[in-house]
């Protein structure tokens, strides 16, 4: 069974640009979570989508946004990129909302120059 997939694996942008990151969950999983792993800041929760709706949001500015599509895949958009947005962005999926184990994808490494 295929795991969580993310694309692209690496992304280089300049300050002020927009970045779009994509995630496909494990088949049958309806919940998608986004986390940011930045140097010195650890792993921080960004967003949770379930059944196409945003269910929870971490302590990030509105320029971090996303959506979930009918096939449960998800996009994370980061507008007006800043240098400190450089990080590994991890997507995880789980079976529906509720207390289910989150399985992580390989991540997208975003570098903002």
């Amino acid at each position, binding site marked *: 069974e295929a795991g969580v997939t993310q694309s692209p694996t690496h992304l280089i942008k300049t300050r002020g640009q927009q970045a779009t990151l994509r995630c496909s969950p494990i088949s049958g999983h309806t*919940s998608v*979570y986004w*986390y940011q792993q930045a140097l010195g800041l*650890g*792993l*921080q*929760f960004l967003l*949770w989508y379930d059944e196409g709706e945003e*269910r*929870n949001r*971490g302590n990030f500015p509105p320029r971090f946004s996303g959506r979930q599509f009918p096939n449960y895949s998800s996009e994370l958009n980061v507008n007006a990129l800043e240098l400190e947005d450089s990080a590994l962005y*991890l997507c*995880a999926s789980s079976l529906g*909302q*509720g*207390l289910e*184990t*989150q*399985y*992580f*994808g*390989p*991540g997208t490494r975003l570098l903002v120059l």
Partner: protein
Amino acid sequence: ELKVEQNPLFLSMQEGKNYTIYCNYSTTSDRLYWYRQDPGKSLESLFVLLSNGAVKQEGRLMASLDTKARLSTLHITAAVHDLSATYFCAVESDYKLSFGAGTTVTVRA
């Protein structure tokens, strides 16, 4: 806000010896996870602990949970080189995970 503290942050292990990583958290939680991360890689789920007194073992790793003390431990028995990695505990609350800072483990001969 839920806070998760891991210690130590760095652990240099000698092959064959036993070590423990500690994870303290600040509020009640639905479940606690341990993950492993190799350099440049994603997170691999090791254990899910659901209730007070839960103990899980896989190979040389054993995790336990004391919900009253809000403490989980990850015990490593007879360390071997391929256990070198960063280990994270994560606590679930409000359908999101709050992670500890991670413990970077290096196993030396």
